[in-house]
């Protein structure tokens, strides 16, 4: 990755003509007669590049819309007067299939009804999106937090601590995630809840987030460790130490600002992965339980209906496809904007 600690005018060819000298602080503008030269920090440059990228704009828009829709789910429920668990069984025929065109699309139910249960697809989708996005973001953040902490620890310390952390990373990578989840989630639920209590949906969600977080930090950790190892020998770190800076200052004020970019990209790539894996958990009965709406469980239930009611499969499938695509494209664009010299 490129070296941000040196002025790019010495080391970075190919900067766009619009950006000028990039120094650590803004330099004063030149004479007004000439074209105004404005100093920009690396972050501002990255932001500009991102804004210019059309793919990034589109995918960011998609994500923002998804986030707004997910957050405002209760608003939609209030507007339509329907609860996501409401069953419109009278709109189902004798086989349990929704009556009408395209899986029951009407003015009252914009995306139709679920076969069998008669729930409104739009509301289930919107609430399910909320659950899935929340789990995916929280897991990504947790994984990054753990990864960064461990990575910095391993990269900074030498000797046995570094070896110990490497060993821990290897073990975590080797551990079968799905089997662990299948075993631990029901056991923990039984431990904390009696046979007559239902675990609150929040508990199951928390368990899923914890499991994802516990298993996905390794990539970030290795990445951060590599970065810290390469950066800790640099002159600016030596200079800081010579000036009397403690470990804390070096870690937080010198090193971390230089490694947040790849971490951000990793987070944005992880989120769609988590959305997909959380959907997969529904297939093995350890996803979010009924009656909490969940995108993954909806996809799982809808697969059998591909031939009989493809509209039921289409809407959640399309949603998850667009979401994952938007996240991946945005992550790509982010990486490009933060480091234009990285290979495509």
């Amino acid at each position, binding site marked *: 990755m490129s070296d941000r600690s040196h002025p790019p005018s010495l080391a970075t060819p190919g900067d766009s003509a619009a950006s000028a000298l990039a120094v650590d602080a803004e330099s004063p503008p030149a004479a007004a007669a000439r074209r105004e030269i404005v100093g920009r920090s690396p972050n501002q440059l990255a932001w500009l590049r991102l804004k210019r990228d059309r793919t990034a704009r589109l995918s960011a828009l998609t994500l923002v819309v998804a986030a707004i829709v997910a957050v405002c789910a209760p608003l939609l429920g209030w507007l339509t007067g329907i609860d996501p668990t409401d069953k419109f*069984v009278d709109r189902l025929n004798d086989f349990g299939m929704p*009556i009408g065109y*395209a899986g029951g699309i009407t003015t009252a139910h914009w995306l139709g009804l679920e076969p069998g249960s008669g729930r409104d697809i739009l509301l289930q989708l919107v609430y399910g999106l909320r659950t899935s996005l929340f789990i995916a973001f929280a897991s990504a953040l947790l994984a990054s937090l753990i990864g960064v902490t461990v990575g910095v620890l391993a990269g900074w310390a030498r000797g046995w601590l570094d070896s110990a952390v490497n060993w821990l990373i290897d073990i975590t990578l080797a551990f079968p995630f799905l089997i662990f989840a299948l075993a631990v989630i029901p056991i923990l639920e039984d431990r904390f809840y009696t046979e007559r209590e239902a675990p609150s949906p929040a508990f199951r969600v928390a368990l899923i987030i914890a499991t994802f977080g516990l298993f996905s930090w390794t990539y970030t950790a290795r990445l951060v460790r590599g970065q810290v190892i390469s950066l800790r020998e640099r002159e600016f770190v030596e200079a800081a130490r010579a000036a009397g800076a403690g470990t804390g200052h070096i870690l937080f004020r010198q090193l971390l600002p230089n490694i947040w970019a790849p971490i951000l990209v990793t987070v944005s790539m992880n989120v769609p992965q988590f959305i997909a894996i959380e959907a997969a958990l529904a297939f093995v009965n350890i996803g979010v339980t009924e009656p909490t709406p969940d995108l993954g469980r909806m996809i799982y239930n809808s697969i059998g209906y591909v031939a009989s009611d493809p509209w039921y499969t289409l809407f959640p499938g399309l949603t998850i496809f667009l979401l994952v695509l938007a996240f991946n494209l945005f992550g790509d664009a982010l990486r490009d904007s933060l480091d234009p010299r990285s290979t495509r």
Partner: protein
Amino acid sequence: MSVLAAALVAAGCSPTTDSGGGGGDDKTKTQTGSISYEAADNQGPAKEVDGASRGGTLTIMQNSDFEHLDPARNYVNVQQVTGGLLYRALNGYKEDGSGNLLLVGDLATDPGKDVNDDCKVWQFTLREGVKYEDGSPVTSKDVAYGIARSFASNLNEGPHYIQQWLYPGGAYNAKYQGPYDGGKTGPDGIETPDDRTIRFTFPEPHCDMPYAAALPTSAPVPAAKDTRANYDLRPFSSGPYKVKSYQRDVALELERNPNWDPKTDPLRNAYPDTIRFTFGLEQAQIAERLVADAPADQAALSWTDVPPAVLPRTTTAGVVERVVKGPTQYTWVLNINTQRVTDLNIRRALNYAADKDAALKAIGGQAAGSPATTLMSPTTAGWKKYDVFNAPVTGDKAKVTELLGGKRPKLVLAHANTELRTQQAEAIRKNLTDMGFDIVMKPIESSSYYDQVGRRNNPYDLYLGGWGSDWPTGSTVIPPLYDGREIVAEGNNNLSYLNEPTISAEIDRVRGLPAVEQDAGWTALDEKIMREYAPVVPLYYDAAYELHGSKVGNAFLSDAYGIISLNGIYLKQ
């Protein structure tokens, strides 16, 4: 992608109509379930089916392998119909799909002689000329041996009627544990004066003995061929087919038994040359293959119901004629754990609250069954419809509020964790919550579901259960399910744990009635239980919805077993 688009357009352009279920007619066949001693009914050969032709290989596609084909361990309908091709019990069911269910003698010349007219001593005379697959004759001693070995504790999965009747008062094998390990050759009460006669003497009267003798328990097993726990793999054939090969969980192949004489058999036509069972296919996969009817699947059928997702594709011409559907002998009820829910008003309120329509639509609607109001199924002899509560099928909120009187009871609903049962449980939860209850859902691993709810001290309040009569009278429904004296620590069938001395006394009284009055007695007791105690919420009468290929002929739903009968089936050449 274009296929999906085409499917979307196709599905979008034609509206799903309300009559997608095929009209919703309330066709519940009432079995007559009569016992026939007429010579015409009891004599072989079986009546020829119009247009039938001999030959061909019939394929039966199944989701999973049979657990037990051993006659002593056979208590599941698909196993009993398969076993019926391999061995012959004393009695059997003669049916032709028109609803006239006749019980006649299979190995025996007639359904059994009540020697002293007190229903305590029953005598069966075996037919002449019945031979095993190796040509040796079937004797009454083999029938006695077959029953004797069913007492062994490791062969205990089958029905225990005859065994219990021979040793009443206590566990069926408390006093006799079978001929192995030094036990007597046969239990007390069975005599075989000669090779063609077998006589049962019961301490108490049992007028249902002809029905019990139709269960596989009385199938003949030669002592020399008894492979004990391995008998499942290769029962020694006394029927029209014998086992050619059996690869567990893969395939079972049956070929003709050359020593079976059709003139001795009033029940079976045995048209196909070979019958092949394949296991391990997904339910949806089987249904799709039968709907598509490719040449390889035209001579095939399945006993697995069509799953809800494939149902809409069975209504088109070309497929709808190959659907075999109808009511079965199972009734599904929402059991209320009366040990925990002791307030009768709450139980009554639950009966008013239940939305049976939603519970059915969650698992396929009309194809899965029809809403129920009684404990016994309409297929039981003498069944009369009654409705104690007269609530609309979607529930009656006003009455519920009235009965609950301001309370909001918290109840735990346990369910099996399969996809369909989870959806059904969610439908019930939503329905009861809207009606004024606080429902907590608890999923249970489906393979141990009945074990869990069958424990007397289980922690749940509501759980679904299905029960089918072993033969079409109320005596195999009411006593096992609603007699409090049957309750044990584990393995209960009385899932509502109803323990009322008045009901137990009434059961004894009806049992003692003369045979002709028993049916009416059970029907009256059915209504009495619901009216006075409401220990369950009857949800629906089960229906079967099966498919067969276009080359399969004379496929009809057996009234006795609730699946496609194989006795008269043939393949169009």
